[in-house]
């Protein structure tokens, strides 16, 4: 005779649909790749691998580079490194269909500082990752995507598939001080770290975890894709792809900057104090 709210797994009959083509493409200062996969049934646990047989090309102004299928990197790959300010056109011919997209590559946002802090929020201490970078284009609204990865040797993660990022999201520069970008990413609470419950393991950072972080400046169409991808999962809507042709996915041209790898030690985490930047000066 339980009085409390409860959660339980239920059986569910999913409707089946014909697989949908999903294209992920990136042109960055570090190289370019495109993956082509298909959606799978909700009850199929095997992750998709990149499908061969497509003709994939990226055009920059007058030159076109054809990307070749590379099984070892599970993608279509080319050494082509993107240049800030250029617009790139992606074309894909796959199974008789034509897909196309254009993305413009913004300039880099060099990272000024990044680290973990304890921040007091509503009477709890939260572990926060704070990052400061230079806004490449202070007079306009800028968009960026970021991803934090964590490599852990903690027994909790033994045998687990770690392809998912620790955190990712897209952001814009609203509310940042002029000329700067900043980000406060809330990782977890001190209390959750102390209690170490299984539901929270994927949020808790453990001693010795290697944390890498990359920031990529993107254009508005890519920002809209990722923002709607995230928001749509809760609301049951598909994201707005910036690729024309009837597939899911996105094509991004962006400049990547990376912060130094941090080996996480709880004792190294400082108390957060406000960082004050005045326009034009860099005080750290």
């Amino acid at each position, binding site marked *: *005779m*339980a*009085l*409390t*709210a*409860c*959660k*339980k*797994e*239920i*059986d*569910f009959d*999913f*409707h*089946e649909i014909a697989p949908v083509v*999903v294209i*992920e493409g990136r042109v960055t200062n570090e190289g370019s790749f495109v993956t082509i*996969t*298909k*959606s*799978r*049934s*909700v*009850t*199929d*646990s095997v*992750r*998709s691998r990149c499908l061969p047989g497509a003709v994939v090309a990226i055009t920059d102004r007058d030159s076109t580079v054809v990307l070749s299928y590379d099984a070892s990197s599970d993608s279509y790959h080319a050494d082509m490194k993107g240049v800030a300010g250029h617009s790139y056109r992606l074309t894909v011919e796959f199974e008789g269909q034509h897909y196309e997209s254009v993305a413009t590559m913004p300039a880099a946002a060099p990272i000024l500082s990044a680290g973990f802090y304890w921040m007091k*929020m*509503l*009477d*709890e201490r939260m572990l926060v990752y704070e990052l400061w970078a230079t806004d490449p284009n202070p007079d306009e609204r800028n968009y960026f995507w970021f991803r934090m990865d964590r490599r852990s040797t903690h027994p909790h993660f033994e045998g687990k598939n770690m392809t*998912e*990022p620790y955190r*990712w*999201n897209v*952001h814009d520069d*609203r*509310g*940042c*001080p002029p000329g700067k970008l*900043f980000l*406060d*990413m*809330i990782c977890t*609470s001190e209390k959750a770290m102390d209690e170490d419950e299984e539901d929270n393991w994927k949020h808790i950072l453990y001693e010795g975890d290697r944390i890498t972080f990359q920031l990529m400046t993107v254009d508005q169409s890519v920002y*809209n894709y990722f*923002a709607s*991808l995230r*928001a*749509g*999962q809760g*609301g*049951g*809507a*598909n*994201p*707005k792809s910036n690729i024309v042709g009837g597939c*899911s*996915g996105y094509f991004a041209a962006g400049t990547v900057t990376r912060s130094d790898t941090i080996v996480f030690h709880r004792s190294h985490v400082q108390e957060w104090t406000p960082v004050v930047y005045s326009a034009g000066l860099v005080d750290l």
Partner: protein
Amino acid sequence: MRRRLVLISFLVVTLACQAQHHGVVVGDTLQEVTVTSRSAQKRVDEVQIGVEKVDIATLASVPSLFGEKDIIKSLQLLPGVKSESEASGGYQVRGGTSAQNLILLDGATVYNAGHLMGLFSTFNDDALMSGSLYKGLVPAQLGGGTASVFDISTRSGDLHDYHFGGTVGLLSAKVVAEGPIQRDRSSFLFAGRRSYLDFFLKTSDEYRDNTLHFYDANLRLNFHLSQRDVLSLAFFRGRDNMGLADMMDMEWGNTTATANWLHTFSDNHYANTKLIYSDFVSDVGIDMLNIYYTMKGYIRHATLQHQQSYRVGRHHRFNYGLEASFLQLQSAEWDINLLHQRERRRALTGALWVGDEWQLGNRVELSAGVRFHLFSVLGGAPYYQIDGEGNITETTERGSGTIVKTYADVEPRVSAKFKLNKLNSLKVGYSRTSQDIHAISGMTMSMPFDRYTMTSNIVRPEQADQVALGWVGITPHGDYDFSAETYFKNIRNVYDYRDGKAFYSEIEIERLILGGKGRAYGMELCAHKNKGPLTGWVSYTLSWSENQIEGINGGKWYTASNDRRHDLAVVGMYQMSPAWELAAIWRYNTGQALTAPSAKYDIDGTTFYYYNERNGYRAPAYHRLDLSATYTKKLQKAMLIWSFGLYNAYCRYNPFTIQFVNDEDSPTGTVVEQTSLFGIIPSVSFTLKF
């Protein structure tokens, strides 16, 4: 969400207590308010099709969640009215969303009428006299909600004697006091309620940093200034404060004040002049998108209304009037890091109406009227033109005294009753209604931090056309009465968030929304047993609800989120003895429309779900049994009432939310998680009244 559910279960464990008392309705009934006993004969005689009169005394005998008597929850037992979700205070009428309901308390508009995220409503039954729910077919003197208008009146204090009552429970405490200010000339009524759950929370380590309290207070003053003049003043204030450490901090509530001067020219002619003020505020501090920020919104109305009712001969009763309101709406004010943004708009709105209740011979009664509705968007704030993608293409800024745009429309309201014989009548009706304040809810339940927007240069007024046909019948001695009604409704300019947008995406709300249309149709059946020790009713609704919004589902018609095919409520009250009364409710509805994925795919190492059809699935069916037993003992000058209740008596875990979650340990990689809000909840309460 999980945290909140755990918190609610904690407060449940502390044993909710409440009082149930048989409201003693005393005091003069003012001429503008018809005595509303939901008696069988009144149901049959009513000319207006599509109206449900709610009787506070009946409401008191029906079992309820936590034992809290709730006029809004009791509405959901009536045909055509559905609950929004288990905990939500919103209700849905004839395929409409809860944002399309207008709730009036003594004429003042009340928004988000729920305490504790809607576990129960902000209306204290001690202060209420009656309520009339118009299910979309509304007489000409009311306007502002396309799906329904719920017109609630507070009661006035006893002009002759003093009465006091008190209720003490673990969930909340209530007091009520009424009596003459000057015997036979003026009276007061005060009803107040406050929760003190937070005192219990402070004793628990885990919940010590959580705040959870609400209060509401009603005050009504009545003055018989002369033989012909009555002045009544009504005040209401309700507030909720909820803070869940490390998640959010919310405060919201309504304040209303109404002054009503009733002047009686003669037995056949009277006038009401009202001055009304209402203020709904919501103040939310949330952490979202890794940034902590606060959001404040408000909606304020200041209204002057004058109406007259004039009976001419035996066949006509005319009703005419006008009203003018000044509206201020702040859809949001927030701080994102160093950026402070705010969107605030003002408008003038007015209406003129004329109607007649016309008795044509012995068999036909007609209620016909027309309402002329005006809305003027005022300058003093930026207005935009927006392209297909939601980007601003043009901004206009006009001075605060100027009118940016005016909308005017004519809304006919007709309802007719054909008496087939003494025991049977047919009813038919048509109404056009419109609405200028639109709550945009990004989720399936309305929340206090829904953003609101007002009709503007580009947001058109929402408008609905409804047509209904019905039959009512009663047995010769009134033992049983029956009704059947069918309706069809068309709605234009319904707004919802674009895919992928939420209330925080931009300060300019018009960039985030898309307009479309909806339609709803269905049938409602109801049977009442009115006499004998066992009384009650059975109500059944069969309904469809669809939307068509460009940009969603490929621009095609799709099942609306609030579509739910069958709804059944069985209510029974058994007077076992003079002291003991038993009651039971059984509810059953077939699955709520549900959007579920049909495939999944990988992006950048993470698996995401693909949604092929909006609302293409159904949640499992919902059913629940509630029981209560009330013991009343009359003492010399007082009355003692003990009430025992059991909510969800056979402990069915009904679906509250259903989520699709990646799980590596599952053979399919996905688990479908159903969260249920309530198991079985007992309640005990005690009341003392003088």
